[in-house]
């Protein structure tokens, strides 16, 4: 409460409060993110308004989220932390927290309460999957397909198992070059019930079953490793359908006007958010805390959805989601969390993959090489 008041005071009395803040807070921040449209959404929704309130602060972006874990390890070893706030996916946040490279925080203290009065802890709910993880958005990995390559007289694909149906939907598929998601989808289409997927995947036979299912389409798969690959392959007409992040598909369809359709079935939800690196100086930490409190409040997370089709991590932000900043279309129907889109969803199991990732990765890679 006290901190909220301080924040309000800062907003109201920019000049005097800014001057006071400058004495105890660092006036530059290095934020680490993914680049592209996603980083732009953060820039527009959080950073630009924050800098208007605090003109003395300068922000530098580092587009290194992809190798954040490795770089934070190296920084820690060299004793030279140059990042102030790092955007990572939830799985990486869990790893960094376990290794002591990310700072644990208290949600009630660090995060603002929802504008409807809910406490931060309740507002973010289950999405705080690790003591170090400050959730921002919910995104999903799902499929897009070329609408002009759907054979004549056939309904466009709407079921995850259509990925395996090479007869009805001939053409290449692009899948991510890692077992996560692909193994789950394969089991779902091999008759395993949704709630049993991870139980089956725990066993050797279950893993073999998933790989055997993937074998059916292996010859027609192009494997991708960067989020930009599938949009490029779809735009080229090189693949008929492919998996990627839903925001990339939104941009491909709505912003770039490509003949591509969304297939939301069995989309896999995942989270992305901030971590504060362990070992920041006092002044840097004070600045980052101030920024995080602002950047994760209800309005800011809702604003972000005007630039990219990822769902805000706060429950209280959902009703505030408006229109796309440039296209002026309603963003709600493009959110992975929209009721129409989330009729059949799959939630990525962090604990399972934390335990089994190395084993299944090795198995998957050797299967790929066969």
């Amino acid at each position: 409460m006290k901190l909220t008041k301080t924040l309000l005071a800062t907003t109201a009395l920019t000049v005097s409060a800014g001057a006071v803040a400058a004495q105890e807070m660092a006036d530059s921040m290095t934020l680490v993110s993914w680049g592209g449209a996603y980083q732009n959404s953060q820039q527009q929704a959080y950073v630009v308004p924050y800098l208007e309130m605090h003109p003395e602060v300068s922000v530098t972006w580092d587009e290194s989220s992809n190798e954040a874990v490795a770089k934070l390890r190296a920084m820690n070893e060299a004793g030279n932390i140059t990042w102030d706030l790092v955007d990572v996916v939830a799985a990486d946040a869990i790893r960094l927290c376990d290794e002591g490279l990310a700072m644990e925080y208290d949600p009630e203290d660090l995060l603002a309460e929802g504008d409807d009065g809910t406490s931060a802890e309740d507002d973010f709910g289950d999405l705080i999957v690790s003591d170090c993880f400050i959730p921002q958005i919910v995104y999903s990995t799902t499929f897009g397909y070329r609408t002009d390559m759907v054979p004549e007289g056939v309904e466009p694909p709407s079921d995850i198992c259509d990925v395996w149906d090479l007869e009805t939907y001939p053409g290449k598929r692009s899948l991510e070059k890692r077992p996560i998601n692909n193994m789950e989808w394969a089991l779902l289409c091999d008759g395993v019930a949704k709630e049993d997927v991870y139980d089956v995947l725990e066993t050797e036979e279950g893993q073999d079953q998933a790989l055997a299912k993937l074998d059916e389409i292996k010859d027609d798969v192009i494997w991708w490793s960067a989020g930009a690959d599938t949009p490029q392959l779809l735009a080229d007409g090189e693949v008929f359908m492919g998996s990627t992040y839903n925001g990339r598909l939104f941009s491909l369809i709505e912003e770039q006007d490509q003949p591509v359709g969304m297939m939301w079935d069995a989309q896999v939800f995942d989270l992305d958010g901030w971590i504060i690196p362990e070992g920041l100086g006092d002044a840097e930490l004070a600045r980052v805390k101030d920024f995080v409190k602002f950047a994760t409040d209800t309005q800011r997370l809702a604003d972000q959805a005007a630039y990219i089709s990822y769902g805000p991590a706060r429950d209280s932000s959902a009703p505030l989601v408006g229109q796309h900043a440039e296209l002026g279309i309603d963003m709600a129907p493009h959110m992975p969390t929209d009721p129409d889109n989330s009729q059949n969803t799959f939630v990525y199991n962090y604990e399972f993959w934390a335990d089994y990732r190395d084993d299944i990765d090795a198995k998957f890679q050797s299967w790929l090489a066969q």
Partner: protein
Amino acid sequence: MSDAVVITETRTLPYSFTLPVIGAAGAFFGIFVGAAQGSTLMGIIGGAVICAAIAWLALQVFGTDQEKTFRWAIVAVAAVAGFLLGGLPGLVVGALFGWFIGWFTYWIGRSRYRAFLPPYLTGGQVLWHYSFRVLCGAIFVFLITPILVVMPLSFNAENFFTFTPEMLSFDPEGYSLRHYRDFFTSNDWQQALWNSVKIAPMATLLAVSFGTLAAIGLSSEHVPFRRAIMAILISPMIVPLIISAAGMYFFYSRIGLQGTYLGVVLAHAALGIPFVIITVTATLVGFDRSLTRAAANLGADPITTFFRVQMPLILPGVISGGLFAFITSFDEVVVVIFVGSANQQTLPWQMFTGLREQISPTILAVATILVAISIALLSTVEILRRRSEKMRGMSPS
């Protein structure tokens, strides 16, 4: 063909040789046309027959008197046929094909391919003479194609690495300068360009000064362990870059240089020094030591001797080494990712992240600009090298 340099008289060869050879060439081109139209076999046969017919027409009916008319006619017919098959691009390809086959028919049929060769060569030797050249051309194409593909794609009107149907039909709508505009207006790219422009010249300056001094020192015979020192100095060229980069990262972190402008400049200078040492050492081989003794004899001190006598003579080597050092720094991505921080993000770094996160043709526009700069710099090196060769030719050795 000009008559002045003809060594061997040309004559019309028998059809038993001419028709199969030209037919084979036609069959080769027919493969592409046939494959595009759905039947490779028909393409091969059709190509062979058509080209053999052209050859017979050319040599039998029109002859050399009406060569010009006939060749233009073929170009026109092929262009029209190409247009009917493939629109505007087909027209261009067809015209080129017509030009080639017309030239090739007379070249083979009138045995002009022997015109510039000594008359005593056997058929096999003549064949090898030309296959060698074709082979060299093929290797050249293999090396240069990836760069050439990038250039037209950078004028793409779409936001993807794709030759759109509009581009392939030479529709002006399919082309645009938007990716160049993006490069010149985007803050990220301009910051990156500015960083590169700030880092590369400083790194070059350091590399050139240290490298030249090292090369001069190492070329005098009384320095002990010359070879060992030389090997250490040029080791950044041999050690895998990633190893140097990781080592520099930890070392620079400890002494507070990591993430600073000076750190990146020093790291790039270390990478550039080997190039300067090698080029300057090579120039020094042709440098006549008696000139320095003569200068000393005339009363010049070593520093005056260096600047007035030695430096002007080894300057071409110094400059070309400096250019290599500059390009190294300008193109370098691994070390800067380790040693630099987001504030020192250079062009190659920006391209690297852009390529991974956002496959945007802006990268191709930047690549095209960089290729143009590299070509300009390397041409300068080549011109300097020739000049230095000439100068070395004049100096007594």
